[in-house]
């Protein structure tokens, strides 16, 4: 493992030996079997792995949508494992910006209202809300589309709205789950260029994907297999990842 290009900023996510078990009927599924991971500020990390590798479970943990069965998870030095539902909601609201494969925009609300949503949950007043949401939409190149509803926007534009929504509360990390999964490759590249731009501006980005081309944009890649980190390396090593991709 190379440590040469690792950023040296403060640790945002500190995971030590976390496990997650699910009860599925009679069976216990061990989705994560002991994952240890540290993510620092302004990293660009790709999480790869075949389906069933625990990728989604890890993402849910990182996104504070779920809490681990055992192990230690600190987000900005705060213990996530001990948090109740409302505290987790507050962490998600302020510290994490989600970007989903299916965009998950509110169909009946225009772009501006969609982007304002996290600010409403943060208790920001209407004027500031509108100002910040407009700025976020400008940042993703949709300044002229703020009053359009999702069904009046293209797939790429919808994902830009979702990214603006993820950015608007200045989160510690942006968690993108297959952000290009529902887009054609050209639009996908545009979205990746936007994420690259955000990374350059100092954002921390965690990308969950099974596509090599997409993962290739990250500065660090981890491979999951059977609930364990199989590999954690800087940059993107095509030969190594070829092997992983082949098993997908």
């Amino acid at each position, binding site marked *: 493992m190379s440590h040469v290009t690792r950023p040296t900023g403060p640790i945002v996510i500190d995971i030590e030996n976390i496990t997650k078990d699910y009860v599925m009927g009679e069976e216990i599924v061990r989705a994560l079997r002991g994952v240890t991971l540290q993510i620092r500020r302004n990293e660009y990390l790709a999480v790869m792995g075949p389906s069933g590798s625990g990728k989604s479970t890890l993402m*849910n943990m990182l*996104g504070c*949508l*779920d809490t681990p069965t055992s192990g230690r998870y600190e987000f900005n030095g705060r213990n996530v494992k001990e948090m109740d*539902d*409302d505290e987790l*909601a*507050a962490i*998600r*609201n*302020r510290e994490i910006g*989600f970007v*989903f494969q299916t965009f*998950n925009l*509110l169909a*009946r*609300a225009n772009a501006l209202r969609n982007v304002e*949503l*996290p600010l*409403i*949950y*943060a*208790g*920001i*007043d*209407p004027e500031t809300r509108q100002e910040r949401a407009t700025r976020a939409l400008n940042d993703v190149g949709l300044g002229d589309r703020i009053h359009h509803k999702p069904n009046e926007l293209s797939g790429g534009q919808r994902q830009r709205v979702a990214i603006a*929504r993820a950015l608007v*509360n200045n989160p510690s990390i942006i968690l993108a789950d297959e952000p290009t999964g529902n887009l054609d490759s050209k639009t996908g590249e545009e979205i990746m260029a936007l994420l690259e731009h955000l990374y350059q501006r100092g954002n921390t980005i965690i990308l969950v994907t099974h596509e090599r081309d997409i993962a290739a944009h990250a500065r660090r890649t981890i491979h999951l297999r059977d609930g364990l980190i199989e590999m954690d390396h800087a940059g993107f090593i095509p030969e190594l990842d070829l092997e992983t991709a082949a098993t997908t």
Partner: protein
Amino acid sequence: MKRFLYELEESWKIAAAQMRSNMTRSTLTALGVIIGIIAVTLMGTAVNGIGIGFDKSMSVLGDDVLYVTQWPWKPVDDWWNYRDRKKIQTEYAEKVNRIIAATPNSNLIVAVPTSSLMRSIKYGGNEVDNVFTLGTTSDFTVTSTIDCKEGRFFNEIESREGAQLVVIGYDVADALFPSESPIGKSVLINGQLFKVVGVNARQGTFLGLFSWDSMVAIPLTAFNKYFSSKSASDSRADGAKGESDVRVKVRDKKRLVEAKDELTGIMRRVRGLQPEQRDDFSINEQQAFKSTLDPVKNTIAFAGLFITGLSLFVGAIGIMNITFVSVKERTKEIGTRKALGARRRTILLQFLIESTALCLLGGFIGLILAYFLCFGIGKAFPSFPIQFSIGLVVASMVVSVLTGLVSGFAPAWTASRLDPVTALRYE
């Protein structure tokens, strides 16, 4: 606090958007509440009306008049103690008046005797059966709020002489004289001619309780002469004797208790009772009657509101059902909102407001419809007691909101407890 307000505002916006985009569904669901609110509101107006009808009938009795009777105006368990009491004689009134006149600072003003029988009245080809025929003196106008639409009540001299005059109620006048003024005409009561001197203003009837509309009044002297049991022309066995009582007007209705005590003392003197003997008469006032009728009134109100409440309950179930559907089909949205930082409380609030908004809308429409229905019923059946009030408006709005909160709670709670991971994955 601020945050709560923003969430509240957001919830209202969502609710409005939700209703707009599911027009048919919302309308049909609201219809249940609309019907429920109409039913409850109409029942409410009827209950109100019944109350007012009772009070109106009661006001005939007067709240400053004491009634000396054989039987008390309340249900008794020991009827045998009352059965053998001596009848109240109309002559007592004179004796009572003499004592009142001799008492300085008496709380009583005047005693008026009345006797009554059911009689038929004829004029020309028209006849009215079972008319409540009252024999009394001219002092009757003091104890009773009687309003003559036409003519007048008989005066003291006519009363004493036993002139064959009659004051008739509105309905009686209407039946006997459909197209002419009754004043000055002679009607036949029990084979005797009586000249109509007055017609009472319409009072309105309610549940057959006291109403001057179907009564006639004649001087007591004439009443005793022609209708008492001694009268040969009276062949009917039942009701032949007639009921008599003495009504006494009180000077100050705030001192009703003292007045009652004073009257009790006077009546004991009139009856010549020894100190150890118990009263062999009853003294009643309007209040006593009210308190026996109130349970009846309350039972009607309770039963009516309960039955109509059931229809509102059905409406509430509709709301609950639609909110469950709404939660189900928006599971993914709930997941997204939770991912963006919505707390449980936020989600709970959102769906509660949605169901409440629907109920409030239904309640509002129902209230407007109920208002017009009331108006229509009032126009079509003027005698039907129906009363629309501000209190009712407020009450039905409160009921609407409560219905929304109660019926929305279970689905909203379910939504708020959804696991964000599962909700996000839901398709």
